[in-house]
């Protein structure tokens, strides 16, 4: 029987991040992956000859620069190209564009509403303030509110100190921001429907809530606090697709002596006397290890690969109650050429960024109403991108690759998913895009249509939830995944969680993996190899 210091289950980006830091500290680490390829939901796959699809996650920005630095991912081939714009097509033939360049952005805002152009200054300053505040908590382990251990008390004091750097009114504003719906939050600033719809989009991506649901304002942060090259709020493409992120992580991990085994599905975490002893693979092989880290979501970890006897009943209940609903679909499209968008002026840079087609809050909310009734949205919110404009490695010369993220798509439509329904769902999305691009359908060569069903089956995310658990405020910080279990340690000694189910959540941040590594190394009394956050004050 092979023997390791630590085994990481699942080669997602968090599993790999975690493994890399453990290996860097000198541990003998093995990563096991059920699929024949690594990356989990951070992959580039050639599903149509000549095209590379980032067929799950599709843009990078939240990935912690501290981790990028600490693992020297640049030298392992990771390069992120910043995206410079986003836009929303309007039904009346017009559009709203949001540009990185502040002057162009202001001019465009003024074209829609003078008042909103002024409000945007306030809005940007406020959101940036919340981003800076939250970023300080990303690479830290949340305190346990039920504990009086010095470490937890100290961590709470740290949290309070950070919050107390805000003024009293800012404190209240922050709580409001944390508990409000994105629609109401934005209405504090903006009046133009298209502008409201444009900035709300980021708050519903991957979330089983609508723009009018309290708590969605915070999700905006998950899509605004990222940065590329120090530009807060900007998004980027990883050159070569998202697989480049996991590829660089794997390369870093291997450079520290780590080992990865693909096509090795884990069936069980072995436990003896309240202590992990290793894992069992589907092939029947047993591997022993002092530490077992699960990159799977919390629900899947506790309900499928752990023996019932090893998990306390109260924890099992929490795992069952964990909100991990899938709500998103995705289309990956191979195009014969660049589609035209007549609404845009010739040569507009807006096709280079995010393109959306929902121009009112009502349309966004109605899309959510459909999902609540277990239907896909008849008029969905789509986030379309054509990364091949920047990155020639994704499609043959002159051809293009388009990625369309779709909100909302149900986990289980009435009667379950069939091939036919999946195609109908895809057709809904294609029809929506074709309304704004007359030649789009003629250029279509291939489309991969993904529903939560595919995400669960292929990647192993329960119910196809892209964040490994909803980012609602009852499941954040010391409540993530469950209260009392938010410090990455599992219910038995030597067992840890490192997936996006844990603080600070999903979005290809790598932070859960790094945080878990810090806890593990601390428990093993090994030197800490994980980075601390960059202070920007």
């Amino acid at each position, binding site marked *: 029987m092979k023997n390791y210091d630590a085994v990481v289950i699942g080669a997602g980006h968090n599993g790999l991040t975690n493994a890399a830091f453990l290996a860097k500290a000198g541990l003998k680490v093995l990563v096991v992956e059920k699929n024949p390829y690594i990356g989990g939901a951070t992959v580039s796959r050639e599903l149509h000859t000549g095209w590379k699809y980032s067929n799950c996650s599709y843009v990078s920005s939240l990935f912690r620069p501290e981790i990028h630095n600490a693992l020297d991912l640049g030298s392992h081939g990771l390069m992120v190209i910043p995206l410079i714009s986003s836009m929303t097509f309007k039904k009346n033939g017009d559009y709203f564009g949001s540009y990185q360049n502040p002057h162009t952005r202001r001019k465009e805002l003024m074209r829609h509403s003078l008042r909103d152009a002024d409000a945007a200054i306030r809005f940007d300053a406020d959101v940036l303030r919340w981003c800076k505040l939250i970023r300080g908590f990303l690479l830290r382990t949340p305190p346990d509110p039920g504990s009086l251990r010095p470490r937890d008390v100290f961590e709470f004091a740290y949290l309070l100190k950070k919050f107390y750097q805000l003024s009293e009114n800012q*404190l209240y*504003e922050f*709580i409001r921001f944390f508990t409000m719906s994105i629609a109401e939050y934005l209405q504090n600033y903006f009046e133009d429907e298209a502008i409201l719809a444009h900035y709300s989009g980021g708050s519903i991506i991957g979330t089983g809530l609508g723009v009018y649901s309290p708590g969605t304002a915070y999700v905006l942060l998950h899509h605004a606090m990222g940065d590329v090259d120090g530009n807060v709020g900007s998004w980027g493409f990883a050159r070569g697709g998202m697989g480049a992120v996991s590829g660089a992580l794997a390369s870093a991990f291997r450079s520290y002596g780590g080992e990865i085994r693909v096509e090795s599905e884990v069936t069980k975490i072995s436990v003896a006397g309240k202590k992990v002893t290793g894992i069992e693979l589907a092939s029947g092989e047993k591997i022993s290890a002092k530490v077992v880290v699960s990159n799977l979501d919390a629900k899947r970890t506790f309900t499928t690969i752990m023996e019932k006897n090893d998990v306390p009943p109260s924890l099992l209940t929490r795992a069952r109650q964990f909100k991990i609903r899938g709500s998103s679909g995705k289309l990956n499209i191979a195009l014969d050429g660049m589609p035209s968008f007549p609404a845009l002026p010739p040569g507009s840079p807006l096709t280079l960024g995010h393109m959306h087609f929902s121009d009112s809050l009502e349309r966004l909310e109605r899309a959510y*109403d459909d999902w*609540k009734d277990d239907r896909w949205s008849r008029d969905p919110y789509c986030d379309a991108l054509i990364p091949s404009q920047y990155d020639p490695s994704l499609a043959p010369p002159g051809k293009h690759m388009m990625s369309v993220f779709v909100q909302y798509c149900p986990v289980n439509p009435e009667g379950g998913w069939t091939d036919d329904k999946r195609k109908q769902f895809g057709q809904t999305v294609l029809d929506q895009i074709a309304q704004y691009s007359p030649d789009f359908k003629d250029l279509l060569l291939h489309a991969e249509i993904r529903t939560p069903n595919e995400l669960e089956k292929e990647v192993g995310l329960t119910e196809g939830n892209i964040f490994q658990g909803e980012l609602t405020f*009852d499941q954040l910080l010391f*409540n993530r995944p*469950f209260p*009392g279990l938010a410090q990455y340690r599992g219910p038995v000694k030597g067992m840890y969680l490192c997936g996006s189910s844990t603080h600070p959540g999903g979005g290809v941040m790598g932070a859960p993996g790094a945080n878990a590594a810090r806890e593990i190394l601390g428990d093993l009394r090994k030197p800490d190899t994980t980075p601390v956050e960059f202070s920007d004050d």
Partner: protein
Amino acid sequence: MTKGIDVIVIGCGHNGLVCAGYLAKAGLNVHCFEANNSVGGMTAPYDLGDGYETAGLATVGYPLRSSIVRDLNLREHGYQPGPAIDTISLADNGDHLVISEKEVLSNNIPEDEANRFKQLKADYREYAKKLEPIFCNKPPRLKNMDWSDKFLLGKLGWNARFGLGRESMYELLRVAGSNIYDVLNDSLSNEQLKAAIAWDAVLGSAMGPRSPGTVMTWLQRLGGELNGPLHQYCDVSTSVSTALLKAADSLGVTVHLNAEVKRILTQDSKVAGIELANGEALQAKTVVSNVDPRTTLLRLVGAPSLDAMFAHRVSQIRGQGVVAKMYFALRGQPEFPGLNDSQLKGKLLIAPTMQYIERAYNHSKYGECSEAPVIEVTLPTTHNPGLAPPGANMMAVNVAFVPYRFAGEPEREALVKKTIAKISEFCPKLESLIVKHRLLTPKDIEQRYHAVQGHWHHGELTLHQSFMMRPLYGAAQYDTPVHGLFLCGAGCHPGGNVTGLPGYNAAKRLLKTRS
């Protein structure tokens, strides 16, 4: 002529009267001004004519806070909480579900489900009890705290950690910001039972069972229940408003009826007095407003007298009424097959599933009326036959969701028809019994009760408008940036329902700032 007025209270709803009572008890000379011809606001009787009346827009509720009843001697002044009632969820097949304060009383609920309900209710009542201190005090400030704020926060922390114990505290932390839909799905299986509880959580607010924050609104309702079971307001002579008026009288409060206040006069951001609709001006250095915060600050004080950003934030307070009231004067006793006479006395609810409520709510987001509305029926005359001519009956109905924006005449007719049709599914002969009806949409409620946009609670009870953010920060401790102006209505912490707590907290705060 106005020399000697210490405090002017605008609006004689129950909170205004509670506040006035406490202030007078402390020795202040208090004058109350009420625009209508009777006190009580939403708890004042509503006359339908021809001998039909009800005890108020609020038809069912929990008893007034017991400490207030004691302090103001309300029992001596005739206050009697009405008869306790059960909630009866009507079922298509006649298997109606009877739910009392602590248990389900129906035979068609399996025993283990009934036990789970009992346990859930007990757990959540316990949470409500532990949270109680925050409801009966002014909301603490988060910075620049005074000793009472620190004490309160400490007490809450202690209650949560040591009163509940670690596991329960974790559970409370998990559910506090959560939605009632998920919590109920986790613990119960009977759809109708879940819907009845979920309805309790969202009643009166523009939220569906799936909206996060609805567990907190349910906890608030359970906080009211700690004072006594749900009861029917059915007797004007023993009602909250009648007793409060008598109490105020005996404490020396002067109440002016038919005296609409047009403006609150200010000078250098200080209250100078009020101006009445008839042009009369009165001087006072302290004014307490029972009127909702938006009307008080934007209309009575006026945005020009406020800091621009503050005024903007006031204008952003959310609260559009979504419940319409319908009164039916009936010529006989309505029959609901499957319900006996004593069950007719309950609150009859038409909300078969949580999804039904959620779908009804969906429409209101877009300014539409629910296709299939949630309906709550009570028959006050089953408790007090005096509210209608002999042999006749009054039916008071809440219909949700009816958005504020909805108002046109044809839509009103359609809504009445729809409501009658829906109730008739359970009470087949209803239509033939109707003598007359009256519909109060949120817009009508706004006009009659001066509650902006017809919201029962003067502002949505969402998490971002609760506690130290209710109605908005900068005015959450009952005093406002206008020196001498206080708020005491349901728009303040802890919000709506007939508890009297906003009035009590405001009075306490006012007295403290004077001393």
